[in-house]
């Protein structure tokens, strides 16, 4: 028998040394549910939803933190496992106000998905925590009545983005995720990158701008694109609903950003819908702008350019291209100046 293999749901599968049961199972196409596990960060084993049954082990083991070992015999959905998961889900659901009807993450919630899969609804336990305040910060809404204390946001903030703005505060029943002195995010080290929102498996963290608009199942289109701000060039998903971008998230695993975004990339998209946008060509007459058609405006520009070329030569024209627009635009503009006008007077803010 090969050295690095184990039995997974009656199937013999290979694994790589150092892989956890979770990773090895994923590689073999078997999905084990997780809540607290955040890829690329240290496993915390906080939620226990990834429990699996390992033959010979006394208790169930958490797949996200247990290394795969040769000849383990593992069951991921045994009766014992399913029983345990149901109990965990009941506890989690009872720990807060999981009123999916008005939750911003309804339809995009790992807790909801698991409750659905294992058919668990919140009834058996009474609520046993008492802070239930929705706190609205600019951009990010924190609603601890939906928090399951999985700690993914803490991992995202501390290990992924390394902003160290939030941590676990208090103990026992009072346990809660806190920012500097249990205050609002804006008074803490928080830089509003939103990595915590992206990591949160429930509706405890959501985006203010999408909170009462985004419905995952209404999303007709998810468009992959590149951030329009700095030179890192982060890869984004634009969530488009009713013809508009309602939310932006990072593309997991993509180069160069591996799913991460900053405040501009995540929240800086809605300028395109501003009422102040230029919507029609404008021509200045007697010091005032008036609206014009494309034909009129372009004819005017072309005839003025031709006149100046005829009178003073092509070098009396100059152009500045845009370092924010697409490559194809800059290419066309330099081609216009070189091939149609006849000058190399073309530059852009290369140096700022």
């Amino acid at each position, binding site marked *: 028998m090969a050295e690095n293999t184990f039995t997974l749901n009656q199937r013999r599968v290979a694994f790589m040394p150092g892989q956890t049961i979770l990773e090895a199972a994923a590689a073999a196409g078997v999905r084990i549910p997780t809540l607290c596990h955040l890829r690329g960060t240290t496993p915390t084993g906080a939620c226990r939803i990834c429990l699996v049954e390992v033959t010979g082990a006394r208790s169930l083991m958490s797949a996200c933190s247990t290394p795969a070992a040769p000849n383990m015999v593992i069951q991921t959905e045994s009766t014992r496992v399913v029983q345990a998961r149901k109990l965990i889900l009941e506890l989690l659901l009872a720990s807060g106000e999981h009123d999916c009807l008005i939750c911003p993450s309804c339809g995009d919630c790992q807790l909801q998905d698991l409750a659905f899969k294992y058919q668990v609804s919140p009834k058996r336990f009474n609520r046993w925590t008492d802070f239930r305040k929705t706190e609205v910060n600019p951009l990010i809404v924190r609603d601890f009545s939906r928090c399951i204390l999985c700690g993914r946001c803490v991992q995202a903030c501390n290990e992924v983005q390394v902003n160290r703005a939030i941590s676990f505060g208090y103990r026992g029943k009072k346990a809660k995720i806190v920012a500097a002195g249990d205050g609002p995010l804006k008074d803490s080290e928080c830089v509003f990158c939103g990595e915590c929102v992206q990591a949160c498996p429930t509706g405890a963290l959501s985006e203010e701008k999408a909170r009462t608009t985004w419905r995952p199942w209404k999303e007709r289109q998810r468009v992959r694109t590149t951030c329009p701000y700095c*030179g890192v060039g982060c890869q984004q998903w634009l969530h*488009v609903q009713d013809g508009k*971008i309602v939310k932006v998230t990072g593309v997991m695993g993509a180069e160069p950003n591996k799913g991460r975004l900053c405040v501009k990339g995540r929240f800086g998209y809605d300028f395109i819908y501003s009422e102040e946008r230029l919507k029609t060509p404008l021509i200045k007459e007697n010091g005032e702008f008036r609206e014009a058609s494309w034909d009129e405006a372009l004819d005017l520009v072309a005839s003025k350019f031709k006149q*100046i070329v005829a009178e003073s030569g*092509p070098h009396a024209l100059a152009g500045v291209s845009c370092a924010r627009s*697409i490559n*194809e635009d800059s290419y066309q503009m330099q081609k216009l100046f070189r*091939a149609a006008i006849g000058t190399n007077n073309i530059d852009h803010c290369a140096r700022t």
Partner: protein
Amino acid sequence: MTNSFNEFARAKMFMIIGSNMVEAHPVAATFVKNAVMRGAQLIVVDPRRHALVDLAALHVPIRVGSDIALLNALMHVLIAENLYDRKFVESCTIDFDKLAANVRTYPPERAAAICGISAEMIRDLARRIASVKPMMVCYTLGITEHTCGKHNVQAVANLQMLLGNLGVECGGVNPLRGQNNVQGACDMGALPNVFPGYQAVTDADHRAKFAKAWGVAILPDTPGLMIPQMMEGLTTGKVRAFYVFGENLANTEPDIRKVEHELSSAEFLVVQDIFPNETTRFAHVVLPAAAWSENDGTFSNSERRISRVRTASPPPGLAKPNWWIFKELAKRMGRAWAADSAQAIWDEEVSVLAPQLCGIKYHRLEGDGLQWPCPDESHAGTCFLHKDGQFTCGLGVFTPVEWTPPAEEACADYPLVLSTGRRLAHYHTRTQTGRCEGLNDILGEETADISPQDAAELSIRDGETIRVRSRRGEVRIKARVSARVPRGLVWMSFHFRETCANWLTNPAFDPSTLTAEYKACAVRIEKVYTA
């Protein structure tokens, strides 16, 4: 960048110079922070104690504009103590002797006086960067936005060649581009001296190649004007028509009053943009353009990666893609161009004409894009340049440079130095971020950041409105007293019109690149007494 972002997390040592990465390139900074958590050494060279300094093994707080003195002194120590990579220098570079002779005149004691740090710190830094290999240098506009910007860049390259840190993973010289597509605009030849793909306009073969491709008899053979020369030409009448695409020059160029005078002198000004702004006010014709996410295309990031940009929603009103507007103008000037989409422009023209991009076609860009050079369609792209010491011209050339002070230094009348840059939540003149819900809540107004020492001397309290004055203008602005700022420095951004640093900045330029000295001008600050 010679290297790539995905190398950051594996790097062993960083020297970050003139780059407030946490605010200007936040996601890149997260990878640096990850590396530090895994044990990488971080060295920050910067006048300010910006956020990365909190994680640094060493902060080297040099004076604004003293970079070359420091870099030369580091090389002085590396050569004097025989700590440089002799093998790399001998096999992959030329003109070492010239460099050695030049840096011999920069003993740490001399540099220390210029940089405002101790000679011991310089020696310590030199020994540290020689002790770990490879070491990655990252920089941003703190290096380039000086009258000696080009020399700064050369000094950084000299250092990395001397240490043998070029052509290796997790090493290299890595300028992080400020704007999302500066790299691309350069690659596309939106520069007065080169065609797309950095092919010189002065070269007859290149001209012939492009003339044939573009169906014209001849192409202009002399390099054109750079932006500051164009602006100057507006006042002399040398430039009669000026076409500004997407740059809010009236706020982003140094010395706003001068710039506005120049723009208002234009005989015929065409501005193509997505919003009315300070520059459109001076226009004779304004053309409404489609914005990001309203058309398809590509961006090139700092690591030379071509990534797709895609359409999510249509442009408002009559606004049109920029490439379409240029095509229509060309048609009216007697040039019919065939390409009728961004994809056609790229696949049929750009990637045919630019040798570095020949292997990059839209159908290959579906996932993570491709990094140039990518010479043919079977090529996987290039993560880091100069592999195995191969330079474009064969060997790496050491170019010795001398330190020169900023064009304007602090003096009795203007005793402080103003340096400028970006803040996290905003971008440039806020034509975009200022119109995004929530971003103004995070940062709603500009401040002038000053040191606690200077504040105490002038009895200025945090949050108090002060006047910042330079030889060119003045602004009234709130003071933010911050220990991150060293004594003698005032730091501002150019995000807000009324308090824009460019009312104050000095239109002094690097003689060869004509990059303005945004990072240094002399100012004084005053309390504002309200009656």
